[in-house]
């Protein structure tokens, strides 16, 4: 067992033990009413659970982040270090960018270069186009459901809600044949178009629109605004946050998707792949001489998500809490 692991275990155990001892002391003193009146004592008696929670969460988060730290560090570790000093967190020959350079000049078994930059571009195209198109289409549809009146409105909406029951797996094969029949099965349209019929986002946007006062829309209508104008000038600014949340969900969903691109794009034309498919392909070789490159590819695919998350983590977390959609 390595010294690092041993030291880590000892530290964790010591902290836990100290915390338990502190708990027992405070609780015991409190029972015998011997806890002093000082600032520390008052703080402890009031916030004992919070202090415990803090220490536990701190330890938990450190363990929780080990894979990410390992991933990031590993992607900067040279091949030499992996083969000669495996398991070292800080490589003896220093950090290098070699893995990233090697990733962009990696060849497959047939000697054909893997078009990694093309995969990145594809992923970006698919994610952004899906997001923009879906928000537009679903936003207008939600407007129609909330602010317009037409016959059969409720029935159409209930039919839409009912189809949420149908899981993707039931229609996956047919979707594949559908794409083939439409003649777009070997293009990026096959990744963009199917997600435009999703009901979940429409439902979320509609729920938000319901919170916008109808009076506001009515008064705008009396002032002679057209529906398009109302949508752009009134509804859109009010519903910015829900569009942001749904947009993030869309983007991350499209970016992270693995199964559908794999199934639809196949293995013939690698220049069509998205980044996730490519990474899964690269990771297929689990030998030592590719650990660094694998990790570099993983980090490359995670960085856009990471950047999005840093800037919008509050919105994402609120959105997940609000909708129960898990990404």
């Amino acid at each position, binding site marked *: *067992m*390595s010294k690092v*692991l041993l030291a880590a275990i000892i530290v964790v155990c010591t902290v836990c033990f100290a915390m338990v001892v502190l708990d027992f002391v405070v609780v015991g003193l409190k029972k015998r009413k011997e806890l002093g009146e000082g600032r520390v004592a008052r703080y402890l008696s009031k916030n004992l659970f*919070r202090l415990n929670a*803090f220490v536990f*969460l701190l330890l938990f*988060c450190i363990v*929780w*982040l080990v894979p990410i730290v*390992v*991933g990031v560090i590993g992607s900067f570790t040279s091949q030499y270090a*992996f083969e000669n000093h*495996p398991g070292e967190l800080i490589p003896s020959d220093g950090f290098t960018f070699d893995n990233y350079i090697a990733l962009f000049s990696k060849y497959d078994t047939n000697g054909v270069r893997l078009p990694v930059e093309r995969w990145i571009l594809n992923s970006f195209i698919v994610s952004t186009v899906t997001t923009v198109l879906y928000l537009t289409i679903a936003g207008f*549809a939600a*407007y129609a459901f909330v602010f317009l009146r*037409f016959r059969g409105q409720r029935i*159409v909406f209930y039919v*839409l809600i009912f*189809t949420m*029951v*149908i*899981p993707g797996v*039931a229609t996956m*094969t*047919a*979707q*594949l*044949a*559908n794409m083939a029949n439409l003649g777009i099965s070997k293009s990026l349209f096959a990744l963009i*178009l199917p997600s435009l*019929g*999703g*009901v979940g986002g429409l439902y979320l946007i509609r*729920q*938000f629109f319901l*919170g916008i006062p109808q009076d506001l829309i009515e008064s705008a209508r009396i002032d002679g605004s057209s529906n398009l104008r109302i949508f752009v000038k009134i509804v859109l600014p009010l519903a910015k946050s*829900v569009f942001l949340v749904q947009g993030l969900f869309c983007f991350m969903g499209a970016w992270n998707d*693995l*199964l559908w691109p794999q199934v639809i794009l*196949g293995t013939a034309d690698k220049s069509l792949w998205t*980044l996730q498919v490519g990474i*899964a392909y690269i*990771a297929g070789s*689990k030998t*030592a001489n590719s*650990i660094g490159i*694998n*990790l570099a*590819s*993983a980090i490359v695919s*995670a960085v856009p*998500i990471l950047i999005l*998350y840093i800037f919008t*983590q509050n919105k994402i*977390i609120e959105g997940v*809490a*609000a*909708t*129960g959609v898990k*990404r």
Partner: protein
Amino acid sequence: MARMTTASEYALKRSKRKQFFKNYGIVLLFLGPFIFFFLLFCVYPLFYGIVMSLMRYNIADPSKNEWRGFSYFQTLLSNSNSIYNTEFWYSMKNTALFAVILVPLAILVPLAIAVLVNSKPRGYKVFRALIYFPSILPVSASGVIFISLFGTNFGYINQWLGQTIGWLDQTTTAWFVIILLCLWGGWGGNFIILSAGLKNVDKSLYEAASVDGCTGIRRMFAVTLPAIKPQLIVCLFTTIIGYFGLYGQVYVLTNGGPANPDTGVGTTATIMWYLQSLMNSGQYDIYGMVSAMGLTLGVFIGCITGIQLFLTRERKSGTKLARAFAAYKAEKAEKASEPVPAVREEANGNE
């Protein structure tokens, strides 16, 4: 007089008709694109899939399609000599077993962490963000990181332990790694939903409970858990459904996993992985069979989703959006009922 009425009625009718077209034109313009995509990519594939499952469907050359009736479903449900039947139910069993083991874990652990975070220790927002973070990573990225951790010869864990365990080469340990990855990169959503639920538990409930002398563990079971029942239900069902769709983790980590030496079937095959492997196997005439499998699984998952939608209808509490809506509704109700208390106060004053 009579003529006048007719004329105005005609005008009214005409304007109504005009209004009708105006209204429905805009409805069509706004709703049309969505309905188009919805019909083309959501409803049509469902019926097309049912048709496909009754055919020996050749995706490369549709002219070779042959009707097979319900024979594929018969094979799937009763013919245990067929390799499709055995492998389908084998991977179903794997998936179900996996879900049964993991669902309690994936709800209880997040619940415990959510309780801790909900006590609002210093920096709890940072903790929340960090704990949720792995859940939004692409599954192939987190899978690759786990491969580098659990690799046999050069993996970090083996090196730290000083062992040479083939984590991904044995069935039990491979499942263990898959479970770890599912926990690490999977329960963040549950955690967020549950902590949102905990945050919104009415404080007066706790006060009432403490007046009645109910504290600690009992308060947890008697007050907190019933109060977050909607969130627990959402978590339970979305988790079950999510685990039936388990695919990426298996594909990246083991790709079906160590083969069973007797049957040659991958021992970590889940149902989605199996369907994917069939579709990517290069057999062009297998799609009818796969469609039948997908529908069989789909009916099952659809039932679970249906129960969930039924149980959670109009009860998505504990949410910011829903709260905003509820506040708006309450405001409206308040406005409507405002005059009543005012009158009462006046009456009191007069007395």
